[in-house]
């Protein structure tokens, strides 16, 4: 019932854009209320759709039960899938573009995530952006972004998906450069757009290749085509690898991740919505959307694992040495997206689950960071400290988000990250091992940098200027609202076989056979090891950063502190030599150097080189070469005319002489011819 109306979910924010653009300034809240109402309605509808999909899928899977086989399913039972559409336009031949919706578990999940986070960000922004000169414009863009992202999610057609994909890109560009008076922001916005656009080359090529192979832009058509198996395996692999390039650009994966930290130049609510919870997951989403196709192309799947594994460790190391709070979170986002990418190489549910949980707690962290920045008037953790007492709500919610990110059980991040590691372990092989080891190591790093950030921001004395105070209710309310899923959202997919038919894995499944073949299980060893590593990271960071020059309130937490303090001396060797000297002072700077100089340098120099090439080509090739040839033709006529006219001396005797010579020559010719 709700699903039939799912098209309203993107349509309402689109309507909101129009209202805000045309009459936003005249409204009492300058357009903010329109966006909030639209998103609230979309969220309600999303929950309805989600419930409908869930009750259908749970009905199917309960018949099978845990560890059963697909034959036990009720006759004709399928995962929920509703496709409705109308032909947007014919393109010639049998080809057409469908403006349609594809509602299934994945779409329902994304609806909930996007509308919920977007609503929170809307509410938060009424406080954060209060008094800004372009307040209405900001809300118009937020609504436009929500519409675009939902369009991307709902699309049943790859071209429509591409429309949403590009639209979120331009929204990101406009919002990163929201304060466009500043050159730094302009550069960041252009860098973000062009880097993702570079990835889009891959996406476009991939979509064209898939559509060209199967003669349709429809996602279902492509998946059916792959399932039928009547295609060139090499071309399919090529297409999917090209799509990965698009996903790498959008989801800020190695080596196209460098735009995301710069994108933090935008307003913080934007960072929370676009550069943490939703847009950057578009790359992960498209891989999940085409997951059955990826299963048919092992090379592409393996590539996902390698890219994800490299990214998650590299970005984690980078986060260790940032002083800008938003950049810590940005690198953390890159790292977590790496987990999702790697997960999708083995398990659809694991990747999608992590996408879902991460969206909530990372949005929370960014909004919390925005609250802190609002209070401290600086992005830099060196100018923060001691904010726990003055900003209790921000602190506790931020702490909840951090612990969820660090993957402390039973918070959200633990369950999803654990699922990824288990999936990697079960997949085994080369890529599985790499992801498992690096993923576990990444957990350690994550714990370390988040703990460090917590200490620098909230512990000790305030090192900045002015008197920070807690943010207004418009900003703290979304924090509290998001803290609840950050703690509890992981419980929707607990790894116990008995609960599986009622969990996220059955909610978002695209195929009953796949669901049966990939049961969710708890692996106690992996869970314990991962938790121990996370705690080790926390403790290591704690050992270092509580020694900060200012008084650290966490020193006085009683018995626990003392116990850990003793361990500090035991761990001195490890912390000093490995964590501090090797990792923090050598490896991480090396990674930063590599990222900033080599990779970002490559980005910079390829941009610069292209520019220089354009300059040279224009000056030499075009103006001198081609246009020179054109002008040269005209000039050569002038030049030769100027030379030739000298023969016209006016001396009659010269003419007569030439005439006689001519006659003589002709006479000789005719005479010899005769």
């Amino acid at each position: 019932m709700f699903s039939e109306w799912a098209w309203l979910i993107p349509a309402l924010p689109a309507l909101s854009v129009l209202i805000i653009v045309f009459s936003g300034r005249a409204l009492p809240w300058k357009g903010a209320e329109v966006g909030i109402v639209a998103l609230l309605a979309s969220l309600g509808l999303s929950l309805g759709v989600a419930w409908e999909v869930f009750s259908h899928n749970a009905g199917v899977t309960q018949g099978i039960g845990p560890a059963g086989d697909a034959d036990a399913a009720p006759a004709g039972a399928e995962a929920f899938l509703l496709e409705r559409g109308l032909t947007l336009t014919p393109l010639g031949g049998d080809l057409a573009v469908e403006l349609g919706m594809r509602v299934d578990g994945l779409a329902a999940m994304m609806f909930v995530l996007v509308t919920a986070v977007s609503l929170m960000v809307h509410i938060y922004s009424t406080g954060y952006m209060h008094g800004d000169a372009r307040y209405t414009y900001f809300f118009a863009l937020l609504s436009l972004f929500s519409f675009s992202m939902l369009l991307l999610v709902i699309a049943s057609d790859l071209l429509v998906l591409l429309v949403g994909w590009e639209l979120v890109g331009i929204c990101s560009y406009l919002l990163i450069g929201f304060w466009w008076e500043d050159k730094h922001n302009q550069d960041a916005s252009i860098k973000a757009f062009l880097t993702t656009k570079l990835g889009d080359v891959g996406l476009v090529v991939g979509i064209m290749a898939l559509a060209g192979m199967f003669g349709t832009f429809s996602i279902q058509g492509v998946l059916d085509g792959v399932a039928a198996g009547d295609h060139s395996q090499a071309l399919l692999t090529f297409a999917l690898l090209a799509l990965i390039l698009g996903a790498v650009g959008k989801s800020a994966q190695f080596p196209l991740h460098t735009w995301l930290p710069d994108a933090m130049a935008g307003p913080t609510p934007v960072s929370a919505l676009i550069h943490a919870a939703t847009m950057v997951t578009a790359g992960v989403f498209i891989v999940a959307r085409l997951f059955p196709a990826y299963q048919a192309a092992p090379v592409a799947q393996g590539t996902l694992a390698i890219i994800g594994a490299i990214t998650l460790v590299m970005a984690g190391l980078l986060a260790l040495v940032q002083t800008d709070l938003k950049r810590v979170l940005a690198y953390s986002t890159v790292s977590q997206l790496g987990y999702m990418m790697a997960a999708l190489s083995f398990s659809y549910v694991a990747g999608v689950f992590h996408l879902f949980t991460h969206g909530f707690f990372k949005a929370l962290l960014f909004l919390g960071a925005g609250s802190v920045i609002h209070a401290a008037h600086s992005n830099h953790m060196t100018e923060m400290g001691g904010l726990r007492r003055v900003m209790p709500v921000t602190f506790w919610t931020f702490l909840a988000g951090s612990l969820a990110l660090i993957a402390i059980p039973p918070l959200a991040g633990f369950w999803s990250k654990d699922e990824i590691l288990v999936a990697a372990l079960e997949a085994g092989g080369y890529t599985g091992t790499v992801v498992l080891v690096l993923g576990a190591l990444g957990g350690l790093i994550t714990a370390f940098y988040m703990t460090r950030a917590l200490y620098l921001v909230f512990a000790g004395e305030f090192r900045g200027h002015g008197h920070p105070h807690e943010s207004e209710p418009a900003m703290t309310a979304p924090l509290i609202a998001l803290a609840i899923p950050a703690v509890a959202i992981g419980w929707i997919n607990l790894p116990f076989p008995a609960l599986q038919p009622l969990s996220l894995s059955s909610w978002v499944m695209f195929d009953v056979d796949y669901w049966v073949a990939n049961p969710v299980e708890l692996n106690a060893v992996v869970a314990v090891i991962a938790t121990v590593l996370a705690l080790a990271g926390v403790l290591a960071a704690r050992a270092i950063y509580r020694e900060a020059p200012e008084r650290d309130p966490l020193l006085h937490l009683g018995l626990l502190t003392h116990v850990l303090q003793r361990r500090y001396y035991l761990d001195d060797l490890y912390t000093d030599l490995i964590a501090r000297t090797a990792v923090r002072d050598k490896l991480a700077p090396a990674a930063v150097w590599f990222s900033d100089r080599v990779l970002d340098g490559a980005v910079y120099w390829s941009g610069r080189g292209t520019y220089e090439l354009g300059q040279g080509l224009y000056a030499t090739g075009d103006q001198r070469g081609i246009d020179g040839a054109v002008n040269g033709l005209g000039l050569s006529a002038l030049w030769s005319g100027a030379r030739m006219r000298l023969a016209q001396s006016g001396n009659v005797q010269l003419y007569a002489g030439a005439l006689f010579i001519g006659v003589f020559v002709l006479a000789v010719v005719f005479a010899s011819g005769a």
Partner: protein
Amino acid sequence: MWEASALTITVFLPLLGAALITLIPKAREELAKPVALVVSLVAFALSLAVLAGYYLGPAGGEGLAYQLRVDWIPIIDASYHVAIDGISLPLFVLSFLLTFLCAVYTFHHLEAPGRPKAFLSLMLLLQTGMAGTFVAFDLVLFFVFWELVLVPMYFMIGIWGGPRREYAAVKFFLYTLFGSVFMLVAFIALYFAGPGTFDIVALQEAGAAGEFGLTFQRLAFLGIFLGLAVKVPMWPFHTWLPDAHTEAPTVGSVLLAGILLKMGTYGFVRIALPILPEAAVEYAPIIGALAVIAILYGALCCLAQTDLKRLIAFSSVGHMGFVMLGIATLTPVGVNAAIFGMIAHGIITGMLFFVVGSIKERYHTRAIADIGGGVLQTMPRMGAVLTFVAIASLGLPPLPGFWGEIVALYAAFNPAPALVDAGFLTFFRVLMVLGAIGTVLTAGYFLNMLQRVTLGTAPARWREAELRDISAIEWGAWSPLLVMTVALGVVPVLVFGITDPAVSAVLTALGVS
């Protein structure tokens, strides 16, 4: 009666208006503007009636309609043969729309030395030439209209243009004429080699029936290709374009970019491909390669520009590259994409030249460095419109530029079977990837331009100058284009739906796709 005379009336009404304007006494020269406005509005309304009648009338949206065939020069079987179909209809209507909007715009601004009487009569003469080119179904008639366009544009650039106007005008005239001479020779050759007629429909049938030998086709195609390629302009025949655009007055630039360039690409679809199908298959890879070179090359040259109008002129080279890539695939999808691309480029680039012309009028400079950024501060609405149009031009979905580009790329992935049989499948797929890379470069230079022009803090001298934001007349001239930009992007069937039956019919008759 209307069925037979509609096109003639619509095409020649502007000519009548031009004659009327020349009768206005010099003392009351300003009267020329309302007269031109009324004439162009009536002509535009008539073109809309033609569009509506194509669907509601006997044609029912398919095939040729509004045919009129009268003997003209019987001894060479050249006739006054006009008709219209789905391929030419969008371009036909667009030409009337743009001329009307240009007439509106002249109320706001006309470059020195003013003289609206002369300017507007030339503009209406130009309109007759443009519209006539799109409805002519006889090669001689086509050529007459084709050349008719040159004269008014030559004077527009040469009299109302910028500092180097004479150079630009002469270059424009001679270069285009140089190409058309080869085309004329090819037309005459078609007359002698084929069924002894200049009638395009008859020649198309002859071409489809294989009446022309392969060697003849190669030579004739080369001649037509040269004439059309200069007009498009394809790389490397493009160098007249930046000069002409840079020097032309705003209205001249709009019509040049909006309609005149399309005459070349239209010629490929209407004449070169259907009459010489086998040569088209042989030339298609070359055209495709030149098109992709144009895409990449145009974008790179744009990065180097310091002059705002010149930058947009070079962007046309790249956009027309996508159009030619679509045509080179010889598939219905590709040709549909090409026509969509033409319309999209006509609307968007026409709009860009309007905005840039207005910026130049206020800043009295085209140099990006002199403007110095901050247009969003000095003129917020102007800056916003420029940003919107630039983003549309870089191919952001769902705006029209996207459909033209992306569908052309799809067509390049699956070119016509004849090309696949000739072993060019991989070649075209490589072209597709290169074209996709071109979209990034396009985004790059447009964002670079926006950053240098609209963003940032405006220099003090411009903030003190108190520049006037968009005037009511400008809104009047621009809002139809802005609305159409959104409408065609969101509802692409508005163009694809018109072109698809005609394109499929033409290409199916050839048997190459």
